[in-house]
């Protein structure tokens, strides 16, 4: 008898054995999922699996297996979010092999090894699918956390009236640069700043993509009515920029943040003056003498 028949005849028994196996296994993780939910998940998978097998299709990617794939996706995604390891997640599907094999072996049948092979193929593919979904979910969690960190770690600061500074620290990748640049433009609007200084002293390397993002940000700021100055370009970065053929002619650049600040002050019609020391004229009439 084929394994489809075995599934039907002994479905309750196989499900029971499978659940019992999971409950006592070393991948149980009772800290992450309780018995009731585990039974629920197993039951959902088992029902969908039986139906798909009954359809006669042996291709896990076929429409007949859609419900099974969805159940696997949901379980894998939720386990990823809960903190299960990839192995513990895949073990959910793989552990079904043991009770299924046992049931097959103890049933009268014609071609045991062929049926076992079919089951192995199906469950292997489903197990791998669960791992892929697990991966994607983990990546989503990580990228969300990264965004949140980025927003916290690259603040735009107001240096003076109408002058903002964006000190960039660390390696810039394409995504981070985009987020940071959008935040800069938004702050320009909110504070009505006339000039934004983008300081890259703390950036070890710049590749073409990042250089392009910087240039696009300067162009966007200009379109909005604000100017940008890029400061802190170290010799190595200057060499890289020339080597990459990036055209910085339309952008004001300064070697240091201090120089950029001085430029920004001039451009906004402001100046810094030393406070004069109290002159001896004032000291004559008072109790203090500064001689």
């Amino acid at each position: 008898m084929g394994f489809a028949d075995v599934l039907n005849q002994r479905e309750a028994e196989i499900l029971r054995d499978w659940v019992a196996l999971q409950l006592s296994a070393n991948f149980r993780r009772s800290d992450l999922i309780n018995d009731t939910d585990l039974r629920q998940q197993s039951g959902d998978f088992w029902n969908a699996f039986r139906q798909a097998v009954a359809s006669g299709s042996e291709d896990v990617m076929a429409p007949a297996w859609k419900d099974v794939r969805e159940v696997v996706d949901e379980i894998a995604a939720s386990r990823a979010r809960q903190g299960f390891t990839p192995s513990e997640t895949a073990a959910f599907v793989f552990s079904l092999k043991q009770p299924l094999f046992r049931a097959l072996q103890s049933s009268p049948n014609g071609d045991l090894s062929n049926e076992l092979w079919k089951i192995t193929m199906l469950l292997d593919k489903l197990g791998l699918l669960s791992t892929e979904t697990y991966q994607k979910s983990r990546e989503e969690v990580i990228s969300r956390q990264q965004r949140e960190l980025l927003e916290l770690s690259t603040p735009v600061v107001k240096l003076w009236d109408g002058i903002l500074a964006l000190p960039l620290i660390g390696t810039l990748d394409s995504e981070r640069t985009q987020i940071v640049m959008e935040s800069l433009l938004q702050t320009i609007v909110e504070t009505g700043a006339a000039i934004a200084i983008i300081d890259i002293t703390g950036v070890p390397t710049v590749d073409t993509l990042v250089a392009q993002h910087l240039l696009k940000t300067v162009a966007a700021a200009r379109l909005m009515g604000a100017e940008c100055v890029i400061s802190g370009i170290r010799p190595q970065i200057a060499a890289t920029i020339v080597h990459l053929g990036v055209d910085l002619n339309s952008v004001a650049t300064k070697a240091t943040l201090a120089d950029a600040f001085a430029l920004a002050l001039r451009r906004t019609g402001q100046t810094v003056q030393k406070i004069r020391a109290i002159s001896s004229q004032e000291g004559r009439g008072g109790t203090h003498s500064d001689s």
Partner: protein
Amino acid sequence: MERIPILKMGDFLLVSIQVDMHDRLAMSLQDDLTDKIVRSRAHGVLIDISALDVVDSFIGRMLGNIASMSRILDAETVVVGMRPAVAITLVELGLSLPGIRTALNVERGMELLRRARTWDDLEGGENGDVPASE
């Protein structure tokens, strides 16, 4: 058809675009503005686009036309209030709005217009012409 209101503020005209304009409305704004510049002898035009969440090549062209035509009519144009997302998209689109001055907001835009006007008057003075009184 509705028309975009144009306000006169002293020497300047102020247009605040509050709606997602269909192409014909944009064209009629262009006509109305040039008409009003002549009739009111305005020397500056301030176009506030802070309410626009999209500026495509058609609107870009309209703004460019307005700037060029106003200049011929002795008025400067400043576009104010462009949103960051719009600016980023225009850069990506490759639209640089040449010949159009921009400022962050109406206040800055006014400053820009006044300064431009002052230079014009000074230039007239240097050449020995008496600046036209308003």
